[in-house]
């Protein structure tokens, strides 16, 4: 099977700082793939390079068989990559429904059709009862789910989730894990997530990439990765083995 996303020897430098250092990996269609690592490891920079916010200094990125490095963020989304942000940024002055309609309009010129699609997604993410609320009035867990809903509304083939579980209580984390698992199972949606919450990574991901100082230090199944000495030393700490 051909990979949906192939990242090949991608590097990104900010003056003297190498934020991403010749990172390579590929994601198969329908896979849930996680990127973990300590703060400052380059995870979000790698995300932003894939999403078109930054252009890579070296390396190539291919999505669905076509090169996307150098593409603009809107161009990347139109090709089928939806994303959320580490610091959530829903449109605060718009209602929950309108936030999702904006995403749904990408592939639907008709507002009524976009609204119907938005309602389906809001129901799936348990946000339908709050559809008329202003996004700025939502709680953090709701805002995180709204970001996922908005990205899903663009009908992505690949969903990039940047720490959607961060700052949530365990019950809220389990809720999002359940939603993502169901989405992946029912629609075959491919997911690439950055996550610090290891219980979510262990529950969701089929493979995990570990970054440290911008470079890949391990890759494999969650069970393999958490036993890697380099990963334990740089990120997880000894308690994970206990």
């Amino acid at each position: 099977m051909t990979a949906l996303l192939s990242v090949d020897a991608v590097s990104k430098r900010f003056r003297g700082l190498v934020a991403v250092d010749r990172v390579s990996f590929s994601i198969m269609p329908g896979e849930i793939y996680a990127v973990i690592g300590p703060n400052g490891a380059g995870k979000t920079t790698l995300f932003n390079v894939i999403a078109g916010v930054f252009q890579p200094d070296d390396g190539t990125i291919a999505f669905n068989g076509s090169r996307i490095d150098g593409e603009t963020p809107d161009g990347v989304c139109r090709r089928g990559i939806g994303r959320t942000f580490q610091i959530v940024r829903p449109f605060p002055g718009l209602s929950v429904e309108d936030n999702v309609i904006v995403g749904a309009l990408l592939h639907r010129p008709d507002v009524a059709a976009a609204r119907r699609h938005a309602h389906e997604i809001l129901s799936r993410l348990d946000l339908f009862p709050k559809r008329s609320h202003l996004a700025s009035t939502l709680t953090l867990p709701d805002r995180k789910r709204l970001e996922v809903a908005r990205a899903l509304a663009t009908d992505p083939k690949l969903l990039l989730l940047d720490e959607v579980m961060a700052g949530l209580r365990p019950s809220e984390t389990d809720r999002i894990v359940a939603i993502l698992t169901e989405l992946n199972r029912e629609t075959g949606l491919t997911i690439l997530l950055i996550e610090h919450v290891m219980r979510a990574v262990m529950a969701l991901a089929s493979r995990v990439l570990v970054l440290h100082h911008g470079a890949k230090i391990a890759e494999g199944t969650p069970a393999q990765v958490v036993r890697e000495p380099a990963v334990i030393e740089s990120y997880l700490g000894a308690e994970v083995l206990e």
Partner: protein
Amino acid sequence: MIARLIEGTSRRGLVLLALLLAFLILIPFFVNDYLITVLILIFYFAFVGQAWNIMMGFAGQLSLGHALYVGLGAYTSAALYVHFGVGPWIGMLAAIPVAGALGAVIGFLAFRFGVSGVYFAILTIAFCEFARVGFDHFRWVGGSAGFFLPVAQYSVNDLWNLRGKPSMFYYVILGFTVAAFIICHLLLRSRMGYFWQAIREDEPAARALGINAFRYKMIAVVISAGMTSLAGVFFAFFYNNLFPEQVFHISRSIEMILAPIIGGVGTLFGPILGAVILTGLSETMHEILHLLGVDVPGAKAVFYGICLLVVIVALPDGVWPWLSRRLGLSERK
């Protein structure tokens, strides 16, 4: 289209709207020319405020040089009328592309090179100032000495050439304002309207949803500039004289954005309500001072300042969002 127009508006709101329109159509039969002139000013500012609102209220791009487009519309139509005998309605067809093209140039320079926020606002001021200086030396349209249209025959209404009584001008500007309201209403609820609002709220997030921010901001500037130029055509034929120092002056640009700011930026009724408050109350204040025999230079500017202060402190979203909540009417910002 009618279904789209009334979608989301309460029955109560529709009845109020119909009554208001009927009242506005009938009012010239019951008031004198002075009051009609005040109403003309109100709708003039409501119209230009609506046009400015497309750029700032819908798409989030602050222009502080919108007098540029009024001036371009005014000078284009006036020059065609005086030099070639072309009527104002045909002049509008020329004014819209002229203003739209310059808007596109400004938009391209700004959006292509990442000029945004206050820097974009400064760029719009700069272009308006260039135009002021340029028209000051443009002898073909009178230069700094001014450009004059043949004065209207007051007793005859010639709609084709926009020469006539104040009541004729009133109906023209009322028609412009109603048309602008309908256009803005449809735009705001269109696909493009949703994209504009997304860009206004958070451009990087909008781009992450596949929205080509450059394209949609350009469209907003061109539509706003073209619509504003129509106000310029009206201005030229209503006042019959144009001076670069007045038409392109920054105070004109500021004056035209006060109504939507006070009424409610990004709302459909905000520019209209703001114009009613500002022009209506300032003219009332002027009349009262006149009756009392008090001459206070700059009273209008002080009044505008007080209105702005009150709104910024008490109602930062503008008067209309507050009023619509009170009246039980809904409007999406």
